[in-house]
């Protein structure tokens, strides 16, 4: 975590890009303090703590990957604000549809952190309890989770449940047909869904300008007749407010919202990726100044809502929690292939019966 101190108002690299994005941390000092005070100490601390846990999870995962305890891992360093801000803006009855990049948001819903770590370890114990957590399994094929969220939102409205669904995605995901079909369907059905696009400006090595010709992903909302809002993705408070508003809108029956959280992918695409092959490392270094945890911490201290020590302790506690979770990974047995095969259908067909999974042989008489 960056050293905490006075919040700085001149955050160079993103300034232009963030123009028009709603912000709390980017407000002039007085208004910022006021805004934070209005949110209240419990919430702002909860947001900070959630970010600290996400960060600690991510850092631990990267270490575990280097140690060979888990496999390839998509780090989300820098995206803690979007994730914490959005999860905490929703209620437990609301549904989350994360991608690989939001692979630990379930932890903020009460899931033990070893579960998502186990997923990257390639152990089926890594599948979390979808119904208990109202969180879909981590989605790997880009953009395919958007329609799921639409269906969940629309369906819960039909059932009179007033649950909201939120789907995560990246700038790159907006080029896929599923993004389009989901947005259109949501708008037509007035589904209470939030499309939260983290515009980190990269899809692996592909920069935003090769992904789309529009500069603001939020502008794509107009094609569907739904509102599009832009928020500073490195500002957990702003993200929380933006998603809260979108959720309120959805609950009021006013339909979907596209939220673009602007930021920058500070790390590699994943542990197997080497960004120096395709982008200037200087750029990530400069964007680091916007890194959400340091920024939020500075602002909280400055606003007198927390002490630096208190925040440091949240970070340390989170680090300990995640280290311990990592230490427990080896305890989880790998289920047998037979067990996994029995999890594909409610009534397992003969083709997945235990005898089929072992030695190939000729049939017995019938």
């Amino acid at each position, binding site marked *: 975590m960056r050293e905490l101190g006075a919040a700085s108002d001149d955050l160079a690299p993103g300034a232009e890009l963030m123009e028009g994005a709603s912000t709390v941390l980017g407000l002039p000092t007085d208004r910022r303090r006021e805004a934070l005070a209005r949110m209240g100490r419990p919430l702002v601390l909860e947001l900070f703590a959630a970010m600290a846990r996400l960060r600690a999870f991510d850092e631990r995962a990267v270490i575990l990957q280097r140690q060979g305890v888990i496999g390839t891992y998509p780090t989300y360093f820098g995206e803690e604000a979007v994730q914490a801000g959005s999860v905490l803006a929703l209620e437990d009855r609301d*549904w989350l*549809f994360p991608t690989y990049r939001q692979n630990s948001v379930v932890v903020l819903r009460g899931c033990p952190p070893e579960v998502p770590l186990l997923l990257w370890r390639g152990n*089926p*114990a890594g*599948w979390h*309890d*979808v*119904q208990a957590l109202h969180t*879909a*399994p981590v989605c*790997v*094929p880009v953009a*395919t989770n*958007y*329609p*799921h*969220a*639409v*269906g*969940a*939102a*629309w*369906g*819960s409205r*039909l*059932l009179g*449940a007033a*649950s909201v*669904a939120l789907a995560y995605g990246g700038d790159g995901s907006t080029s896929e*047909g*599923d993004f*389009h*079909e*989901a947005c*259109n*369907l949501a708008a*037509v059905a007035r589904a209470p869904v939030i499309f939260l696009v983290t515009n980190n400006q990269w899809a692996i090595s592909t920069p935003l300008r090769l992904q789309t010709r529009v500069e603001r992903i939020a502008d794509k909302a107009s094609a569907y007749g739904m509102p599009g809002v832009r928020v500073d993705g490195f500002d957990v408070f702003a993200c929380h407010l933006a998603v809260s508003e979108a959720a309120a809108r959805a609950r009021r029956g006013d339909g979907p919202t596209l939220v673009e959280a602007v930021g920058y992918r500070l790390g590699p695409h994943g542990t197997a990726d080497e960004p120096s092959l395709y982008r200037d490392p200087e750029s990530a270094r400069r964007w680091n100044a916007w890194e959400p945890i340091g920024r939020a911490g500075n602002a909280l201290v400055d606003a007198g809502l927390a002490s630096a020590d208190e925040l440091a302790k949240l970070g340390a506690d989170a680090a300990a929690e995640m280290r311990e979770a990592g230490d427990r990974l080896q305890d989880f047995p790998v289920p047998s292939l037979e067990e*996994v095969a*029995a*999890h*594909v*259908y*409610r009534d397992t*067909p*003969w*083709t997945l019966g235990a005898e089929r999974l072992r030695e190939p042989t*000729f*049939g*017995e*008489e*019938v």
Partner: protein
Amino acid sequence: MSTKVTMVEAVGRALGQVLEEDPRAILLGEDIGVNGGVFRATAGLQERFGPDRVVDTPLSEAGFVGAAIGMCLVGLHPIVEIQFDAFVYPAFEQLASHAGRFRWRTNGAYGLPLVIRIPYGGGTKAPELHSDSPETLFSHTPGLRVVAPSDPLSAGEMLVAAAACGDPVIYMEPKRLYRRGRAEVPDRFLALSLDRAQVVRPGADVAILAHGAMVEVALEAAEQLAAEGASARVVDLRSLYPLDRDTLLRTATEVGRVVVVHEAPRHSGLAAEVAAILQEEVADHLLAPVLRVTGMDMPFPLFQLEDQALPSAARVVSAARATLEY
């Protein structure tokens, strides 16, 4: 009480029954509402159950199949209509990467109670891409069940069973049979076992295995064979994944000569799987190799050629004869 209905009417009645008995059932698809579907399978259902339960979707198969998956998560039981066979292709990713994997992703805890209805197959003099038989794509895709009825009664019963199954079912409707005659159906369809084949004609010399519209062709062939003095058993496979292994093995063991018929292309089609299983498991009982009468390995031809391309009773008879003379 019972009534005589066509297959498409049986489908409509089964859908009505499901909507009536299961308040969580919902129908989605293109033009299924006021219009009642391009085949009129859902005729009258929107009027009866309202536009929230019989939903006209925008033209976006991936989107509404994906949405149906999401609906399952919150407790609905969606039944999706794909307008024609080839138009399921845009939804393939949603079916392969999600529908078939969902229960597995919950370690068996939660399945998707999802039915995808696909009117399929040739023989209706339709334009290009309205006569495909894509069932193998789904039977080769893990996590899905694939079934095909062959008459009004099996259509109703299997659809009701598919809706109750708790896992995604690809329900292939042989559209060429939609209005091919009427048959008695009960007022209320019983949900029969989804994965049982059915012997639809007894016989001892050669067995003809088929599904969907090919069952009729098989029966016609059996009739011709009977005239020649050969008794052909006809088995309606019904469940294409999983196959009904017991019935397959019993049939092959008892009869010894097997012909498999389907409209889909031959290479790695369903008949290949049946042949592979039979030679693997009951080779010693086979009196002749399993023969395949299938669609060609080419795009389903424009309709002036479709009768040449589709398996015909004549082709089935000559395959049966070949196995009999082997």
